[in-house]
């Protein structure tokens, strides 16, 4: 009868939140759209950075600490570099780190969740204990230890955040699996002699995809935030400055050159807010409760 202790009680993590009241869906559509908007701006800006600005984010120039003006939309930093291009290219780094590590986390999480949910019994028990361990270990501190021991660099940071972040997805996918397993169409497929692999991929996966998308949105937000933390502590990749690193470099100029910290900070917060809103909106639409990062 002992519920798995450390895990969030199933009900909170399960789709218990189906909106009982129809008129709520409008509220959550709104948050999805606002989220997409907030997310879209930095995403698009980062993607078509070369179109938006010719300035090289790394090029030094004598015009240091200039306030935002036509020449430099977001002003220049302490070494005369154009903040606008640094925010855009920094956005690329942050988003790449966020999306790729979220991808890794999603893949592992889905795999673990599917296997645990489908086979149940011993496998489920073992996988859930492992999930529990990963859920308890302070992920960010572990990320610091790994980066400090194995050295920084974009690829390592991505792998570390990805490999440590799959717990949330695993929980949601498993929860859905427990429900879907008992659906008629799964039983029918089993009777039809389909192999476990076919059932999982052709029948169950499509139904789980919406929850994976929700989890992906939230994971990306979390990953970008974690990367910005690592950069702030000086463990980021100095040759590829992300928003976190820009904020760290702007520490000393909060008053002198407010634009150096404000724009990267806004971009970072906007993106994470956008991702959370999208995740939230989709979660309510599919009835999946907010997933613990």
């Amino acid at each position, binding site marked *: 009868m002992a519920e798995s202790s450390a895990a969030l009680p199933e009900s909170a993590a399960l789709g218990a939140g189906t909106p009982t*009241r*129809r*008129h709520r*869906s409008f509220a959550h559509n709104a948050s999805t759209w606002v989220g997409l908007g907030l997310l879209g701006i930095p995403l698009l800006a980062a993607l078509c950075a070369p179109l938006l600005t010719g300035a090289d984010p790394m090029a030094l120039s004598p015009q240091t600490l200039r306030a935002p003006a036509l020449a430099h939309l977001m002003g220049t930093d302490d070494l005369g570099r154009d903040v606008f291009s640094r925010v855009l290219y920094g956005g690329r780094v942050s988003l790449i780190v966020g999306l790729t590590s979220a991808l890794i986390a999603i893949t592992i999480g889905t795999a673990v969740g599917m296997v645990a949910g489908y086979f149940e019994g011993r496998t489920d028990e073992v996988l859930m204990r492992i999930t529990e361990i990963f859920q308890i270990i302070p992920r960010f501190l572990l990320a610091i230890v790994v980066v400090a021991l194995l050295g920084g660099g974009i690829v390592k940071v991505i792998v570390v955040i990805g490999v440590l972040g799959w717990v949330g997805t695993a929980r949601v996918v498993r929860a859905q699996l427990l429900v879907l397993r008992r659906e008629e169409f799964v039983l029918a497929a089993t009777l039809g002699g389909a192999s476990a692999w076919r059932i999982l991929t052709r029948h169950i996966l499509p139904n789980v995809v919406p929850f994976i998308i929700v989890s992906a949105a939230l994971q990306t937000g979390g990953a970008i935030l974690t990367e910005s933390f690592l950069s702030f502590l000086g463990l980021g990749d100095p040759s590829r400055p992300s928003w976190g690193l820009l904020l760290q470099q702007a520490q000393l100029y909060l008053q002198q050159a407010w634009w150096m910290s404000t724009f990267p900070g806004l971009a970072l917060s906007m993106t994470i807010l956008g991702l959370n809103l999208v995740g939230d909106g989709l979660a309510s639409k599919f009835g999946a409760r907010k997933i613990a990062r």
Partner: protein
Amino acid sequence: MTETAPSRTDAKALLAIEGLVVEFASAQGETFRASDGVSLTVAAGEVVAIVGESGSGKSVTARAILRLVPHPGRVRAGKIMFQGRDLLRMPREQVRELRGRDIAMVFQDPMTSLNPVLRVGAQIGEAIALHARLSASAIGARVLDLLRRVGIPATAERAHSFPHEYSGGMRQRAMIAMGVANSPALLIADEPTTALDVTIQDQIITLMRDLNRASGTAILLITHNVALVASLCTRVLVMYAGRIVEEGPTEEIFLSPQHPYTWSLLRSVPRVDTKDKKRLLAIKGQPPNPRDLPPGCKFEPRCPFAIARCRASEPALETVGAGHAARCFVMMKNAEAPA
């Protein structure tokens, strides 16, 4: 177009509902009426049943009495007179004082009616404490006494345990104990036995009958199980599509149902009390969809005796005997009984 039934607020009625209309608005904006002009009375100490299929509005009507209409329901019209005061116009605090003291309610699913994290004794005690300034020990004693009255053994240890340590039947007994804690004038039982197996159902019904006889508490029984009505209730009201289609003393309703729906209901239940063995009859068609009801008699689409007039307009409640009325143009006594 709903015409309200003739108001019959006779003095001794404990509860008199007149022309109650409860509307639900769906997300898409259109509204439908769960109760559409319902009127009924319950005398002190009387046991009245409201019978009908699920979705007929009987449960919503019952809840409206305590102003507990589930969201997004709204009471649009009508009066609920209780001991001479209209509950719908009463300020919230007074309604709150009335709930649990003068009118109590027992719900359908005992498994979810008790708060899983609070001890049973405490939840029953709360019903008392909400309405009376008593010391903890006094409340404790009352709780034990109540548990004994509803037949729960080993009361002291039982009061201390949690709901999940009770069986279904015992939980319903606890709910009833909670209901009658302040010996209310009226006990509303919303499908109290539906979630229980048959043997337990009988015990619960017997318990309620004893309580009614012992303390004279009027009982308004909401059920879709016609059989229960026979053994417990003095009067029956049949609801269909949000309105009362027939009401009258139990024997008369059972012996000579006038509204085809009541008749069909009685024919779809195995009868042990009558000798003639007739084939069970299933009511054809689907239960009415409150969003698009037919213009005329709401039962018309499923009524074997429907005539043209039934489709045109809705019949009013017509008296067909002492306290016996039905909402039908044809009435069973005129229709030839099918095989």
